[in-house]
């Protein structure tokens, strides 16, 4: 038996080898088939099963104010949708949905009876409503979150920001103009997923998400924007103006600090307003500037040596005819007046006669230098460039009319650029509203720089023009803009509106404007207010627009901590301040705290800081304050003569005030 087993060993091994060879060959051929012949196709199939392309929708970038407060942002808002084919018990579920969403029962039934796989019940619901609907667990009802543009400040800066339509595309304002920056890029990401559909990020597969939109920072100061909008709205309503706008700017940098339009609209519900509400009048509308053109023409005449500030011009008592036109002044009391007075009292006749001293080409070039007729390129949507007729179409009396702002159209931004040049010492500056653009990874991809285009008037002439504009506010047509603590310079303007059909001026339709800067000698703020067709209060720029400027300046100067000069009130530092009564002021110089040598010091004990400072106003000391609460110490004793004193030190502490006598008693008791 063993022998047989041994003799057949070789045979069995051979058979085994052959079997292994056959199976091995089959395996190898199958492996060859799978790996080589079918390899590519099978790899593709496997990839399709385990790999997926996930599309990340980019988030639209935010828009911020200059100090980083959100002006526009996208949020995911829940909405309720259904697959009508999947919804059972339609009548009962329709009733539930109707109760929760506030949509009528009939409307929901209509939706549920449609033979489609997706329909909206309500596109935007509150988070709570979404949760309540989810709790009901109705089959076929789904909560869909989708990005919605939200403007948390409501109407604030609405005309500049614009709004976003469906598909996340900007339709107006900054949202439209900078859509390509804000929108970001949709990106497909290759990921692996398991049988449950969960994504697994492993080596070799990117982690990069969609490139979110860039964030845009504007030069707008939110607080200044609010007060500008608030006072413009208030005065425009009071004057019953058809429209109005205001621009507040830093004349030294060109940064637009506030830009307001009337009437306003809420961009969160833009579709509820007609299109005329969406227009940003401050940049799209051109208008005949009227007398606000006068300082620009006078500056040009001074630069060309055609007049001097004290040159006397016959104003013919307010009525002057030449070449078929008659120029009128508001009042007929202008006789012979200096150039200073022509600007102060806004004499059209005087200005016409200055205009006529120019050669046509000379005046045309000056308009161009001031920026009239050119797009300002401030970074806003729809910037108009105004209208200056070609030189060949100027009539003989063209320079006369244009010198007082007729027959020429300008935009608010152009006037602000010109006004800023007067305010900042004679350099034309480019207004701008985009402060910087920062991408989704925090990298600054654009940063604005102040851009001085060119110096157009010398500083001597600039000072002369500034002085003329100061006279306008001090005693001329712009007195409603006067402030107590600060010196304002400005110019009023009342332009007639032309009938586009006939080309003639309407008799009772005006554009009332006022432009000004403050503080007079070293301006920090420049502002233009234009009211279109005011019908109450009056129609003069000095009556309806100057009060807006006054109110805004008054509050803006406080907000910006601009010191008016006068008394020096100093909060005492821990190390102790060196006080000589000399403080740097907003007007650029130093204000010496003058001493009232005949004053007798009052008893201030128990006063609050405000009460004490109010009393000390009349003494004109430098006042050094420490602590807070009620006054318990004053360095100049009550009843003493303040003649030689330069500084008074006041100390305050919180809690109830104790008279010195009481204090002594309290100390004794303590001992």
């Amino acid at each position, binding site marked *: 038996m063993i022998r047989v087993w041994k003799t057949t060993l070789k045979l069995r091994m051979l058979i085994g080898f052959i079997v292994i060879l056959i199976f091995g060959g089959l395996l190898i051929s199958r492996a060859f088939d799978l790996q080589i012949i079918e390899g590519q196709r099978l790899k593709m199939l496997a990839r399709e099963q385990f790999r997926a392309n996930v599309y990340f929708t980019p988030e639209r970038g935010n828009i911020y104010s200059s100090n980083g*407060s*959100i002006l526009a*942002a996208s*949020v*995911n808002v829940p909405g309720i949708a259904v697959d009508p084919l999947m919804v059972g018990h339609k009548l009962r579920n329709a009733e539930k949905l109707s109760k929760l969403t506030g949509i009528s029962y009939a409307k929901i039934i209509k939706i549920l009876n449609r033979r489609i796989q997706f329909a909206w019940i309500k596109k935007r619901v509150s988070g709570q409503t979404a949760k309540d609907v989810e709790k009901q667990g109705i089959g076929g009802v789904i909560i869909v979150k989708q990005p919605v543009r*939200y403007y*948390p*400040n*409501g*109407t*604030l800066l609405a005309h500049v920001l614009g709004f976003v339509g469906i598909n996340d595309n900007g339709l107006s304002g900054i949202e439209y103009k900078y859509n390509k920056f804000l929108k970001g890029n949709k990106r497909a990401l290759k990921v*692996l997923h398991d049988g449950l559909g*969960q*994504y*697994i*990020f*492993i*080596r070799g597969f990117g*982690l990069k998400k969609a490139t979110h939109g860039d964030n845009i920072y504007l030069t707008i100061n*939110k*607080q200044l*924007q*609010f007060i500008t909008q*608030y006072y413009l709205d208030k005065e425009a309503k009071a004057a019953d103006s058809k429209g109005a706008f205001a621009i507040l700017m830093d004349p030294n940098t060109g940064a637009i600090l506030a830009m307001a339009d009337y009437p306003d609209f809420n961009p969160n519900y833009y579709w509820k307003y007609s299109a005329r509400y969406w227009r940003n009048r401050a940049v799209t509308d051109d208008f005949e500037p009227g007398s606000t053109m006068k300082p620009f023409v006078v500056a040009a005449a001074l630069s060309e040596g055609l007049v001097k500030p004290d040159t006397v011009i016959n104003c013919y008592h307010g009525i002057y005819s030449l070449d078929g036109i008659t120029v009128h002044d508001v009042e007929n009391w202008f006789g012979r007046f200096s150039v200073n007075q022509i600007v102060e009292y806004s004499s059209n006749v005087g200005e016409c006669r200055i205009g006529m001293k120019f050669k046509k080409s000379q005046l045309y070039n000056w308009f161009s230098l001031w920026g009239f007729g050119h797009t300002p390129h401030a970074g806003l949507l729809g910037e108009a460039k105004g209208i200056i007729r070609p030189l060949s179409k100027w009539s003989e009396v063209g320079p006369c009319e244009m010198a007082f702002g007729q027959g020429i159209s300008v935009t608010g931004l152009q006037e602000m650029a010109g006004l800023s040049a007067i305010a900042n010492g004679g350099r034309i500056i480019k207004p701008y509203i985009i402060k910087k653009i920062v991408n989704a990874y925090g990298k600054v991809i654009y940063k604005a720089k102040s851009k001085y285009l060119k110096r157009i008037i010398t500083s001597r002439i600039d000072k002369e023009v500034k002085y003329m504009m100061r006279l306008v506010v001090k005693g001329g047509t712009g007195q409603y803009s006067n*402030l*107590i*603590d600060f010196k304002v310079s400005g110019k009023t303007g009342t332009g007639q509106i032309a009938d586009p059909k006939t080309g003639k001026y309407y008799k009772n339709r005006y554009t009332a404007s006022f432009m000004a800067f403050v503080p007079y000698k070293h301006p920090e703020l420049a502002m233009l207010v234009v009211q279109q067709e005011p019908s109450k209060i009056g129609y003069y720029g000095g009556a309806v627009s100057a009060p807006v400027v006054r109110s805004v300046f*008054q*509050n803006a100067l*406080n907000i910006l*901590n601009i*010191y*008016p000069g006068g*008394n*020096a*009130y*100093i*909060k005492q*530092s821990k190390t102790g301040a060196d006080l000589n009564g000399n*403080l740097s002021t907003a007007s650029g110089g130093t204000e010496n705290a003058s001493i009232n040598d005949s004053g007798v010091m009052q008893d201030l004990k128990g006063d609050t*800081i*405000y009460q004490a*400072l*109010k009393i000390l*106003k009349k003494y004109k000391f430098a006042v050094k*304050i420490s602590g807070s609460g009620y006054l318990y110490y004053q360095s100049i004793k009550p009843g003493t003569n303040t003649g030689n004193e330069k500084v008074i030190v006041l100390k305050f502490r919180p809690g109830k005030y104790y008279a010195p006598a009481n204090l002594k008693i309290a100390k004794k008791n303590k001992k």
Partner: protein
Amino acid sequence: MSKIKPYFIVLVIILTVLGIFYVWTTMESIKLGYNITKLNNIKSKLEHKHKELLIKKTALSSPSRIYGIAGKMGFIYPKEGEIIMVHD
């Protein structure tokens, strides 16, 4: 044959260890992948929540709202001359 055998055994052991190591790293990598996904989701949710809160804060502190509330409480903007500026 006897000389080759130890080398063969060592080779098999090395290959086995390498194989186990490879499987272990792959498993760890997948586990980490899951964790990354989970953390990404949490991060994303927190980012959204943060943004929502920021927007809510902005809406609550919007100047027009504050002005309205202040007005109801009797606060008004100070008039000219009522403000005394104190320097640091």
